[in-house]
């Protein structure tokens, strides 16, 4: 059978593979090459060595964006996962209205980042105006808190669904055995439910970490990086370097930043997967 399928590779693999070359492999390789060049358009690129990287790694805005992103990712990951897990635990107790609550909490996920950003921009600015405080785009700490709130609102529902699925797949025998052995609710949570939930925790941490790190739409729509690039995250910083500045050197800098960004995301993903996979238990 394998041989028969192999013969049909132009039908099965070629369309996806060709599009994959156009949409990923070629731009990726070209981007890698261009990060060592000075260019405005791709045709007129001159080799520049490591200058772009040196610039990117010493630029204050980029370094600030890195720390801002890192802090944001840690804070939002913790908030999202703690809240999602708490809600998932509450919704698996078979209380009244479970289905309604689940639907409501999940809903913001379906709305796109740009739209979400504007909704919260309007809402938070109104709150700040009524409190007599400076607006989101004028005071960086508020911008940071706003982004965290926005991400929580969007992501808690998604993670909650994953945690609920994980909780429901724990065999009832385990819980019953623990109860017969005299474990109280807290012990059941820490010794039975959480260890068995590790695969879900791995996935959720992975998703919220990478989502936080790659965040762009929400950042653009909520604060746009204001004031003075202080709430700019890495993705937005790269975008601004590419398209927000004129001058022949900026695109090269942007591409170098993008490569650094890409390496960071890959390293973080791998480390995180390795760290939590090792804590998973066999069912």
């Amino acid at each position, binding site marked *: *059978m394998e041989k028969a399928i192999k013969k049909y590779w132009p039908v099965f693999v070629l369309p996806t593979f060709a599009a*994959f070359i156009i949409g990923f492999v070629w731009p990726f390789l070209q981007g890698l090459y261009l990060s060592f060049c000075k260019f405005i358009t791709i045709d007129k690129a001159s080799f520049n060595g490591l200058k772009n990287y040196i610039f990117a790694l010493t630029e204050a805005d980029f370094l600030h964006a890195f720390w801002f992103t890192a802090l944001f990712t840690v804070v939002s990951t913790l908030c999202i996962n703690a809240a999602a897990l708490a809600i998932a635990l509450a919704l698996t107790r078979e209380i009244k209205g479970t289905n309604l609550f689940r639907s409501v909490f999940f809903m913001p996920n379906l709305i796109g980042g740009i739209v979400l950003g504007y909704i919260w921009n309007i809402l938070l600015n109104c709150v700040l105006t009524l409190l007599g405080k400076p607006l989101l785009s004028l005071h960086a700490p508020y911008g940071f808190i706003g982004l965290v709130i926005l991400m929580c609102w969007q992501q808690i529902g998604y993670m909650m669904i994953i945690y609920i699925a994980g909780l429901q797949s724990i065999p009832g025998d385990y819980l019953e055995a623990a109860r017969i052995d005299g474990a109280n609710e807290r012990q059941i949570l820490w010794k039975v439910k959480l260890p068995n939930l590790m695969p879900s925790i791995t996935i959720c941490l992975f998703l919220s970490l990478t989502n936080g790190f790659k965040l762009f739409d929400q950042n653009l729509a909520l604060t746009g990086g204001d004031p003075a690039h202080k709430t700019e995250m890495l993705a937005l910083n790269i975008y601004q370097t590419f398209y927000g500045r004129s001058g022949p050197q900026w695109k090269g800098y942007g591409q170098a930043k993008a490569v650094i960004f*890409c390496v960071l995301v890959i390293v973080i993903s791998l480390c995180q997967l390795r760290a939590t996979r090792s804590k998973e238990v066999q069912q």
Partner: protein
Amino acid sequence: MEKRHTVKDHILSVILGILSIAWVYPIFMILFNSLKKETSISTGTAFELPTGESFTGLANYVNALTSKGFLSAFWYSLVITISSVALILICCSMCAWFITRVDAWYSKGLYYLFVFSMVVPFQMLMFTLSATADRLHLSSPYTICVIYLGFGAGLAVFMFCGFMKSIPITIEEAAMIDGCNPIQTFFLVVLPILKPTLISVGILETMWLWNDYLLPYLVLDRTKGYMTIPILIQYFRGSFGKVEMGPMMASIMMNIIPIIIVYLLCQKHIIKGVAAGAVKG
């Protein structure tokens, strides 16, 4: 074992109830602001319900639909989402079947390449990808699906491969012995078994495509007026001069309403799709 509702459960219900009201409030806020007059929408008064004075009915909606290009943006969004999702589902499921059934170095290599592409952030390719799309004349809403197929293939192939492994190979072998060629086997035997997975992947891809902003913004040729809804909403704000809050609120609502309708209609599938996608991811 019938569950007794304790006091604690009732308190929990109440807390979650309050929380879920807070969860939907932002959308209601946009809804009633979209019914206000342009002059009555400002940062300080966003929480006020429309009164007799500031209420304009559907004027903002009419304005957005007739003069702000909402209809064409809606149409392009629809075209892009439907064509791309259809293309991704068909091509990627075929590709994934090949990868799981052919045991060779190149199918493994291809698989890892697809997985790798899922992690790479879009910023890495945005400049070169939009230049490539431009050169190959793929920058119209009717051809951008090729770009999406390439860029979105990673997730789809990965998920299909995960499910494909659990399909017993004997069914396919039986079909082949009965005289099916691989194409017939795939479309008549494998695809029907794959239906739940197709729905899950389709939902995840639709959620991404309908809301995607940066890729269409960079790839689509805006000189020809190609815009999707997220681009249009960003355009209301990003363009110089006064922000037109009224039509923008109306556009946001008209972006959200179809999503909510679809969500209410196939909520079960969506939630299942998300859970299934996560387990395989």
